[in-house]
């Protein structure tokens, strides 16, 4: 059975802004599905629709075989939602927030403690602290506990790790992996490309449309360019020089390296490129062909779509 089936969903704001355009995808039960896209792509609009907070203009959505609109009350019982902005009560304590959500869902904290224990253990020492006084990582852990306390079958997480440091992000994803072993389906959006590779499948979304849905491995396999990496003593000067490069290519900084994807016959193009760098007096390290990462794929797909 599909946990979620979204068919041709569209949404227009103020008659002018097309936030979503014929969005269609399905998520299998128990899947960890990632929604990856730039700001303003429509990710949060989609989350608001899927969590029954906003009506789509058209399209059909089924959650665990229930109609999202007709059965919205029943749907709310089986979903958990972690919104993109911190939405707990800042002036209630950690424990009071959890109690509040448990009461609202008529759920028993003790009965569901096994599900949240690994997370709860980390915030329990602060259970009397006001939620508004927690650090960013702690807030997210508390919000996740509150979203899970009624043991939902589908969990919606809208950018749960934005602004969270690398160590806490890693912990958060370990928690997500543990949650799915409990049979909970997860739909998560993220601006971090390294997190996209941790999903079973991902959908790339831009300007309200889905550009592609596949496993991270398959998306990386479909990279169209020939990708190379190299180092430069002065990356800013290099990037400026590359603006004049006559070859069909797409270049960008990537950590300490420069990545460049060519859309050329490389046997001819590489000597031309080396000559170009020399003419521009650009000192560089060895130029090595590499396999693209999800971030490379995302950049390629978005650039191709903005040109077409």
């Amino acid at each position, binding site marked *: 059975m599909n946990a979620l089936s979204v068919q041709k969903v569209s949404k227009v704001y103020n008659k002018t802004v097309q936030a979503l355009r014929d969005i269609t995808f399905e998520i299998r039960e128990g899947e960890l599905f990632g929604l990856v896209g730039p*700001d303003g792509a429509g990710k949060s609009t989609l989350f608001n629709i899927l969590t029954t907070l906003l009506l789509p203009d058209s399209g059909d959505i089924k959650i665990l075989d229930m109609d999202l609109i007709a059965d919205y009350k029943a749907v709310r019982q089986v979903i958990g939602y972690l919104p993109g902005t911190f939405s707990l009560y800042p002036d209630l304590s950690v424990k009071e927030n959890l109690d509040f959500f448990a009461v609202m869902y008529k759920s028993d904290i003790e009965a569901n403690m096994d599900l949240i224990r690994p997370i709860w253990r980390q915030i329990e020492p602060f259970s009397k602290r006001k939620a508004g006084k927690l650090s960013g990582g*702690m807030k997210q852990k508390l919000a996740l506990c509150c979203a899970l306390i009624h043991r939902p079958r589908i969990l919606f997480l809208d950018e749960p790790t934005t602004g969270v440091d690398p160590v806490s992000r890693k912990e958060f994803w370990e928690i997500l992996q543990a949650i799915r072993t409990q049979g909970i389906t997860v739909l998560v959006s993220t601006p971090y490309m390294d997190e996209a590779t941790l999903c079973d499948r991902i959908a790339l979304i831009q300007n309200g449309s889905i550009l592609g849905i596949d496993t991270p491995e398959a998306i990386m396999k479909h990279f169209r360019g020939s990708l190379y990496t190299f180092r430069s003593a002065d990356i800013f000067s290099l990037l400026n020089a590359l603006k004049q490069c006559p070859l069909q290519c797409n270049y960008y900084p990537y950590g300490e390296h420069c990545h460049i994807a060519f859309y050329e016959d490389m046997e001819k193009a590489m000597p031309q490129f080396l000559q170009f760098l020399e003419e521009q007096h650009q000192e560089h390290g060895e130029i090595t062909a590499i396999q693209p990462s999800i971030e490379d794929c995302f950049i390629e797909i978005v650039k191709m779509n903005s040109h077409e």
Partner: protein
Amino acid sequence: MNSIEVDHLTKKFGDFTAVNEISFQVKEGEIFGFLGANGAGKTTAIKMMSGLLQPTSGTAIVAGYDVVTQPKLIKRNIGYMSQRFSLYNDLTVFENMQLFGTIYKIPRKELKKRIMDSLAALDMTKQANLLVHSIPLGWKQKLAFATAILHKPKIVFLDEPTSGVDPIVRREFWNLIYETASTGVTILVTTHYMDEAEYCHRISIMADGNIRLLGTPEELKQQVGVNTINDVFVEYVKH
């Protein structure tokens, strides 16, 4: 010459030491990455350096002024882009820049010219009269940065400027940082994207109020014996 000189800077909130005797210098025109876990004390340290918060002890000289005795002069000579709040959603792009420019007492005619030049450089001239809430986050962040440097400060503090921004816009934003630094402006920036840490001239890593590591990205990787700044970070913040 140093733009920032921090010497045993400390901030205590009651029993809690948020920033514990940190010391470092940032050179003019340098891009300095100020890294650390959530709650490590980065924002508190930035608030002290920008004259918004008085230190408990220690000193900091920023743009040639003392944070303890000359906070007003510091505020006039720095730009600050805060983590969350940076622009007014219900003002237009132009009005936001006009407001901040006026606060910094930029003469009216000069201000208009600077705003138009700045918007042209961002390729946002057409958006001048749009309300800020209607433009995408990536544009807002670029606009907030342009607004923070409108009064031509010597130093800009950027607190997580690219949080939640997509890979392409993040790179455009860093291009702006590089361009600005190349004109001699000093940049102190915090980020949770470890690839961005590699773009900095030097970085420091804070944990529990202390600076644990400081050096060029290359030096830190060698020192810890790993290949990426992400690994350096995980290694040092975990313990």
